[in-house]
């Protein structure tokens, strides 16, 4: 216990729910505060910036729909990353896994003759598998050869980016697209339905919410979930309990990569209806999903909320680009700041403050 005047600070082993929530909000507020300084330095009065953001996103139906549209890929990738991070697998490769899913979906849409009702399910299936396979490669490399998972997952993002570039410039380049590096447009049966007058492909959104619920059940109610949590929290205990590290890593990355793959399917089948340059398919959803997952602190259901928050931030970035002529990179700046403050204030969660005016001892002296 430490004392500061009449206040006593006690350590606790597990943070309480209000503490987690309060500290997370504090981090977001601190990031907003720092962002104000950056706005001001950029010559935009902070209050005006925030007013523009709120009005452009939450203030109109269009704005709200834009938030939802950005939430979809963040949610799917984020839920997968929650799963990976729970087992201490550092999957930084959701971006590449998302693109793998987009490629597989495009392949099915353009080059198979499936009857229309089967086309979309087949695209989702193929997209999931492609993302899963792209995710399992680093799992194998890590378990068998000790290859650092951060580097391998990240490097595979770049590899997949250039595979997509090659496809759209080379073998899959659409004859009807003249000079553009696009594939041909998918047949109508491969388009996802949208909420009217919006870009929200609601089936993918439903899949995302469903995935969050299923992953939450998997983690809390199944043997596999238990094995996964143990190998994340205490690798030694997992080893003595006979839990196979190879199996856990492969399953985790199968699901994590697969969910990111679904996000890729949603983007091409719901919005673009063709395969196009990677930078247009994903605005770095796979990277931002890392923050979505970290902010959710291991809870797939909380990822629904944090994905919405970052969907809002992406939509705000669009709004600032249009109205304030600020580069879209403000999103990156803000995301980085939130992540910094989030981990910076983490220690606070483990202290409980109590009002103890009559205690003995003096300011700041550490006891135990």
């Amino acid at each position: 216990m430490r004392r500061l005047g009449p206040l006593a600070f006690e350590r606790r082993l597990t943070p309480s729910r209000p503490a987690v929530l309060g500290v997370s909000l504090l981090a977001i507020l601190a990031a907003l505060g720092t962002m104000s300084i950056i706005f001001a330095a950029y010559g935009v009065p902070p209050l005006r910036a925030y007013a523009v953001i709120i009005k452009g996103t939450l203030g109109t139906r269009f704005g709200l729909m834009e938030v939802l549209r950005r939430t979809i890929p963040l949610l799917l990738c984020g839920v997968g990353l929650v799963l990976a991070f729970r087992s201490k697998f550092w999957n930084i490769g959701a971006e590449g896994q998302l693109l793998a899913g987009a490629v597989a979906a495009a392949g099915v849409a353009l080059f198979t003759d499936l009857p229309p009702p089967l086309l979309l399910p087949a695209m989702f299936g193929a997209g999931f598998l492609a993302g899963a396979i792209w995710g399992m490669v680093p799992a194998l490399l890590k378990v068998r050869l000790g290859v650092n998972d951060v580097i391998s997952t990240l490097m595979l993002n770049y590899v997949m980016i250039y595979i997509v570039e090659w496809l759209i410039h080379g073998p899959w380049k659409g004859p009807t697209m003249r000079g553009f590096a696009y594939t041909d447009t998918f047949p109508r049966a491969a388009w996802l339905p949208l909420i009217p007058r919006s870009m929200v492909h609601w089936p993918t959104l439903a899949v995302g919410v469903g995935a969050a619920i299923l992953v939450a059940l998997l983690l809390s109610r199944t043997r596999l979930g238990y094995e996964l949590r143990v190998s994340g929290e205490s690798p030694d205990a997992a080893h003595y309990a006979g839990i196979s590290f190879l199996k856990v890593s492969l399953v985790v990355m199968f699901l994590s990569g697969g969910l990111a793959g679904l996000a890729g399917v949603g983007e091409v089948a719901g919005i673009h209806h063709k395969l196009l340059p990677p930078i247009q398919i994903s605005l770095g959803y796979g990277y931002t999903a890392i923050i979505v997952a970290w902010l959710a602190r291991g809870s797939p259901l909380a990822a629904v909320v944090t994905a919405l928050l970052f969907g809002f931030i992406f939509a705000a970035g669009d709004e600032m680009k249009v109205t304030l002529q600020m580069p879209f990179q403000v999103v990156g700046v803000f995301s980085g700041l939130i992540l910094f403050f989030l981990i910076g204030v983490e220690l606070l969660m483990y202290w409980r403050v109590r009002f103890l005016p009559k205690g003995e001892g003096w300011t700041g002296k550490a006891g135990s």
Partner: protein
Amino acid sequence: MDWESWVVSTLNRALAYGTPLLWGTLGEIYAERAGVVNLGVEGMMILGAFSAFAVAQSVGDPWLGLLAAAVVGAGAALIHALFTVTLRANQYVSGLALTIFGLGFSGLLGARWVGIPLANPLPKLTVPGLSQLPVLGPALFQNQSYLTYIGLFLAVVLWLVLYKTRWGIVIRSVGESPATADALGVNVFLVRYLCLAFGGAMAGVAGGFLSVEYRPAWTEGMTAGTGWIVIALTIFAAWNPLRAVWGVLLFSGLYHLAYRLQAWFPPEFLKLMPYAFAILVLAIAGLRGARQLAPGALGIPYTRGEK
């Protein structure tokens, strides 16, 4: 093309391509030797690249640009130090935050500078005398960067410091067993701060090299994953500055040999080569058991008075 000019141009280009990798890797080796992983190399490099370009363009001196890059890189690394050493935050997440922030912030500040060529890039160096040697002359001593030679020199100095001086023992002991070092009166926190700041300065210069010499202009995201390759090379080099030289040469040599295949392969495959190589290089390191050589306390925050 005859074999001689083939070897010459591969070596020459490999040295240029490898220079930022070498600077970055040497810096990261020191940070990790002190026990702290910094995944923010990519972020520090891009901040370095932008500040080097901005200063070189406004002041007119590319060397001042590099100095600014070093200062900015060190400053960015100190943020990481504050979070991971003092606040004991997760090192991976803090490094990722630094990279995300660096890429965003440099893009935000650099928006008005995109596409302007640098008025006065760093001059090239041709070593008198040695450059007249057959084969080796044009390969190693013509049209090279000052930073290539300084980098190679630093590799030797940093190896000597790490293995032959008291400072080196202090740094390695802090990364190996901070509690023991602390008990012997070493200021663990200070050593970690200094090593991280040094690593950041090196990463900053590595980024600056890209924008004031390699491609003298500012492009958003121009580091294109180089910072991540640096982290792979740090592991491949088994945290040894001299092995870093061989690792970097092998890596960039392979990269330029791959470029010789461009008649047979689409350009996109050549572009993905370095990233595939980085995985390959780590797989090789894994087969050789490089992980056992990692500093014992790598990635673990140090808390005083806890077992």
